[in-house]
């Protein structure tokens, strides 16, 4: 290679990077302006997200302080009526009892509260954005690259500005989780609506449906299986992210995993890890069985 370099001008051989001092100046300018922004607006932003903090605290204390038998009964009931499947219900009861036996009940409740709130917020944000995206190619062209960044940017990187603005705590953890978990919700809502049969839409038009009637009667119901897949993905990604979020002050199973990593506690690490897996499988099987049950009408009897 050196031989090629000897005949090429230096500029084409070694990449002509911008001068290091210039880069340093630019970096400092961006950092300072962001710090300035945080100083002047940090309190305002904190006030705006305060309701989130209350909601999170309320749900967490509700989950943790309720007698375990009530929570277990509630979970089993939800799983059964969601899936109508005895095997999934029994599996849920067994895994929750095992989690309780190894002393992880309270941590699991904290994680459950967190994942519940994150999933609800992701759905609340994701579905409207997905609908907007499906309605307009321009919105789609704008949102898609943003989602790409959200999904591929290493989570530790966007934890930096989040922590700078909110400090350490549940709310920044929640925001980090939602950033990571909302893209599949948005993408699959968009996809589901775009895949709705054009002929059924045309029929809705021919009968004089308004835009809202079309969305309510045709697009959302027909997109529901895809949207359910999105919700399922969002739950899974929230669960995966609560471990990372524990680095910025989210409690629960993630925190235990983090401590186990730091101290090389092999057993603690795996116990907490399996507890997360248990919850993940319960959520996954239940939401999938529920989604399938909603699609009962698509069973073909006549050929």
């Amino acid at each position, binding site marked *: 290679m050196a031989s090629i370099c000897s005949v090429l001008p230096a500029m084409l051989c070694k990449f002509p990077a911008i001068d290091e001092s210039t880069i340093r100046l630019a970096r400092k300018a961006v950092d300072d302006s962001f710090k300035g922004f945080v100083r002047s607006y940090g309190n305002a932003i904190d006030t705006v997200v305060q309701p989130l903090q209350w909601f999170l605290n309320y749900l967490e204390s509700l989950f943790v302080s309720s007698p375990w038998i009530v929570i277990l009964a509630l979970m089993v009931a939800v799983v059964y009526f969601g899936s109508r499947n005895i095997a999934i219900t029994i599996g849920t009861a067994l895994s929750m009892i095992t989690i309780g036996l190894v002393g992880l009940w309270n941590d699991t409740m904290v994680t459950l509260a967190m994942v519940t709130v994150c999933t609800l917020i992701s759905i609340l944000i994701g579905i409207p954005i997905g609908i907007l995206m499906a309605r307009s190619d321009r919105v789609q062209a704008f949102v898609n690259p943003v989602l790409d960044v959200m999904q591929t940017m290493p989570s530790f990187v966007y934890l930096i500005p989040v922590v700078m603005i909110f400090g350490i705590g549940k709310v920044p953890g929640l925001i980090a989780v939602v950033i990571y978990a909302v893209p599949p919700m948005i993408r699959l809502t968009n996809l589901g609506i775009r895949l709705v049969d054009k002929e*059924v839409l045309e029929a809705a038009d*021919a*009968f*004089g449906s308004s835009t809202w009637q079309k969305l309510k009667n045709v697009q959302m*119901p*027909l997109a529901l299986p895809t949207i359910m897949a999105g919700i399922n993905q969002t739950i899974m990604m929230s669960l995966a992210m609560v471990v990372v979020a524990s680095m910025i002050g989210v409690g629960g199973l993630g925190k235990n995993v983090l401590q186990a990593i730091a101290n090389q506690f092999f057993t603690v690490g795996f116990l907490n890890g399996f507890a997360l897996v248990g919850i993940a499988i319960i959520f996954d099987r239940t939401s999938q069985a529920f989604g399938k049950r909603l699609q009962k*009408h698509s069973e*073909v009897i*006549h050929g």
Partner: protein
Amino acid sequence: MASHAIEVKNLYKIFGPNGRDFVDAVKKGMGKAELNETHGHVLGLQDINISMPAGGVMVVMGLSGSGKSTLIRHINRLIDPTAGEVLYDGVDVCKMNDNDLREFRRHKTAMVFQKFALLPHRTVLDNTVYGLEIQGVERKESEKRARGWIERVGLKGFENHYPNQLSGGMQQRVGLARALTNDADILLMDEAYSALDPLIRVDMQTVLLDLQKELKKTVVFITHDLDEALRLGDKIAILRDGRVVQQGTGQEIVLSPADDYITAFVKEVNRGRVINVETIMRPLSGNAEGVPLVTGTVLESAARTMTAARVATAHVVDVNGRPLGALDLSTVIAAMVTPVSHEDRAAA
């Protein structure tokens, strides 16, 4: 409420981003191929002028790509025209604003689709009330009306089935019930029966003809099947390459096809079921002889009546029994077979 006629006037549709720019060129004679090759635009319809009879069945016939589905979508403006007018009760559908158009679609039109286009997550009953639900009719009232139509199309007992649980013919009955429940003046049927088996198709044609006897809606029926067109149509328009080649009653088209293209179609038609006795009768000379045949009787049943009565002559009478003309068995049979001239034209 009496139905009104639909007048389609000078309608042009050119698909593509700048369709409007080419209307004049097409009017001056630019063809479909040239428009597509040199300008990248597709000529959908050109210079369509059809007067669709009030309270009658208008059949638009053509092969795939002839523009028939494009034409029917102009009547409720699922497709916007490039130029021209679609008049209903004196109002140009093409000039309505969004709100008026929505009201027009809700109250004046109902549509049946080739691939049924039912809502898969709704039961037969919930599909049937769809039009009324959109109009904001109270659920109890709309359900009552829907149940009536479900029964009329022969689906009683299937109200709570989902479309996927029904056969194609039954699904299209739901489509028909959905359209009829709307109680609109205009019934648009876009190849409504093309996806059905031949026997079920004939069955559904009978359902439509029976209903039409009492409903007297303005029906626009799209088909690629000439037999279906002749059976249903009070008036037929034949499209080819986005242009009307011939329009008239079934008899007119069968007896005097406008060009070789239509001759080729007509050749295969069972003429005995299309041509009426009054079309071929000769003036009455002297007394009425043989069996009486009422006007509107088709040749096939005339021949059947005459052979059953073992007579070779018959006379045509109007509904009041007044004699109008005479004919004999050989004339009837001659008219039933395809004339040699048509055979030649089709072969050429």
